């Protein structure tokens, strides 16, 4: 689902669905439409940080760890892992190198040494084979190395590749996570999350693809979304009347 469809659902989902409540500034409780509440929260660029977290981000952003050569290598390698397709952007289009640059500073004990050492291993291997650093190789030469490290080697048939295999696995993890947590990645994967809606079960055409179904007895207990805005009332036995 694309962004514009999400927005359509957001509007549908909020009609009469919620009420504004008394604020911290001491306003009286008010009822009615809340058309601006959801969008207000998404306007803030701070992703809800506490003062200490704002300081943490400033500190991390002010640091530098990977140098220009390392970042150039990161960009090339990430685009080999997730290149541009007819319908989807590449890793660099999705700013994966920027994400990797940040995360190695944010989680240094996890990533700094493996990343720096792994990139250097890649240059060493490139020099050994072609007498050039990885960034200076032809595409086919890069692929020759990548093909040797992109798959596990459980029988240890090429022990000299083991450090490269380990590095590539970590690098691929960060590339995939960095890519699929962006709008480009969402669109490629078809992520349909994170918008206000009125969920009413798995669509019939989806159920038709699977060997499971809704049990009528179970569904009889579930919410009737046409009555979601009717205030709940019960009889003395706990049976819902509205």
């Amino acid at each position, binding site marked *: 689902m694309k962004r514009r469809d999400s927005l359509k659902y957001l509007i549908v989902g909020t009609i009469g669905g919620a009420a504004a*409540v008394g604020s911290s500034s001491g306003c009286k409780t008010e009822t009615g439409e809340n058309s601006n509440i959801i969008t207000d929260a998404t306007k803030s660029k701070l992703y809800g940080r506490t003062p200490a977290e704002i300081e943490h981000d400033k500190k991390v952003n002010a640091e530098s760890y990977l140098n220009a050569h390392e970042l150039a290598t990161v960009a090339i390698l990430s685009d080999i892992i997730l290149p541009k397709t007819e319908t989807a952007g590449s890793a660099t289009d999705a700013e994966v190198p920027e994400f990797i640059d940040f995360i190695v500073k944010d989680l240094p004990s996890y990533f700094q040494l493996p990343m720096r050492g792994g990139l250097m291993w890649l240059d060493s291997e490139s020099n050994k084979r072609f007498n050039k650093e990885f960034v200076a190789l032809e595409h086919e030469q890069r692929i020759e190395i990548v093909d040797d490290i992109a798959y596990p080697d459980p029988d240890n048939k090429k022990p000299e590749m083991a450090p490269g295999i380990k590095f590539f696995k970590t690098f691929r993890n960060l590339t*995939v996570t960095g890519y699929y947590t*962006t709008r480009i990645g969402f669109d490629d994967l078809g992520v349909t999350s994170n918008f206000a809606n009125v969920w009413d079960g798995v669509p019939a055409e989806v159920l038709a693809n699977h060997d499971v179904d809704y049990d009528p007895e179970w569904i009889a207990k579930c919410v009737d979304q046409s009555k979601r805005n009717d205030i709940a009332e019960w009889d003395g036995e706990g049976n819902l009347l509205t």
Partner: protein
Amino acid sequence: MQIKENAKEYDVIIVGSGAGGGMATKILSEAGLSVALVEAGPYFDPKDPTTATQMKFPWESPRRGASTNRAFGDFDQSWGDWEVDGEPYTKKEGTNFLWWRSRMLGGRTNHWGRISLRFGPTDFKHKDVDGLGENWPISYDDIKPYYDRLDKMVGVFGSKEKRYNDPDGYFLPPPKPRLHELYYIKGARKAGVDVIPSRLSILTKKLNKDRGVCYYCAQCNRSCNVYADFSSSSVFIIPAVNGGGQVDLYVNSMVRTVTTNDEGKATGVSYINKEDRKEYKLKGRSVVLGASACSSARILLNSKSKQHPNGLGNSSDVVGRYLHDSTGAGRSAFIPAMMNRKTDYNEDGVGGMHVYSPWWLDNKKLNFPRGYHIEVWGGKGMPAYGFGFDVSGLNKYIGGDVGGYGTKLREDVKKFYGATMGMAGRGEAIARYDNRCEIDPEMVDQFGIPVLRFDYKWSDYERYQAKHMQDTFEEIIHSMGGIPLGDKPTKEQDWGLLAPGQIIHEVGTTRMGNDPKTSVTNKYCQLHDASNVFIVDAGPFTSQADKNCTWTIMALAMRTSEYIVEEYKKQNI
């Protein structure tokens, strides 16, 4: 240091603004009593856009939600986790206890799982069944009217199932199961495990004119900006503070002790203002502690006086003892039938599971006492940090190639999106005298307050329960046509039993009972040793049950608060 004393004497000082403190604030202020609510963290309102994380996309965080700063990730709405800066705790050798604290208005209720299960008749009298632990001094019938009112006051969805030890209530209707939950239902039933709609305090239907209705973003752990889930901040405290003028809210105020007079009765509290780091005193005719089971025990133990030389309320030496957390163990699974699923529809649902398995067996036929329930997770949720790690590894289960890049990698990501799910068992541990928190003899926190030291060990009761969980998970997974992921935890690994504290259901530190020699409070959560001090968190729980503790914290807090109001009317306080 000169301690600054506020001249005003409150009817009640409430310490802590979580589930129990919030309920007490509501009931006591609405009864017309003057209330000082003292919270160790800052102000928080779930709908304040400057602190809101709800509806944020992962790319709004430069770390895509990773847990660098918050243990459950950037978007989880808890300020504080297993560690709080400047507020350490220690452990005796051989103890691995983890203690979660949320320093903010509303406490842990801003991010909790909203699982709202009543304790059943057996849960209050379990010693009668198996001879272990201690019976509560109250029964289900004593607390049932409060559960009933709580359901209507706060809202909980669920279904009437007529199960003896999982009593029904006044439920809002539950949401329909998601796709992976339909697989779970099928597998659980085949394995002989009961499964019913879950019971969560999320408004699937309008409850009153002050709160919104769920819009199915699946983000209750971020706390809801239309107040459609229960957080103590949004549902109890903010309305009470903005309401009748009965509540003075003290935030960033860390209570050090309860102060007492020559008769041994409480006179108020002493607290550190975190902003100026000075000590202040508040005067109150009664004190209600709702700081959390362990924090309230800490305050009591630190409140030593001539009248209470072993700490306030601790003539029994039971404060801090009988600490117990729920047991926990889990397993994840890959469901090949869910590969290459259609993704072009939303399936976020509410913030939590739509189905669960309440305890379904009789322990007489088992080698461990007490039960557990099973929580279910999975589905094609919104990617965040960690998404796609080792995604191609699942190929080994279907004869595909592990590893790779480019087109193959993109296909793997799509193929496996939403094809994994998992189960988590949450069970009842036996409360034991030796499992405790106590005051560390040497260490203080940054406010000079002596910290807690934990001493806690699981027994074979809990270990065998975890083994049963693991066996059950595998049976359900196979019944779903799934493949269990990772290796099954072994005996040497305690069958995957998580460390105590990790389930964040710690209870029992100020347990209730009729005998002042073996309990801290009476059945109204009133200290045996000081009649104007009450406890409204999970400290008074005599035992935990195979349920989550929040609904019972609130039902008990309502009952205790109304008892306090009656005591005021009778001029007993």
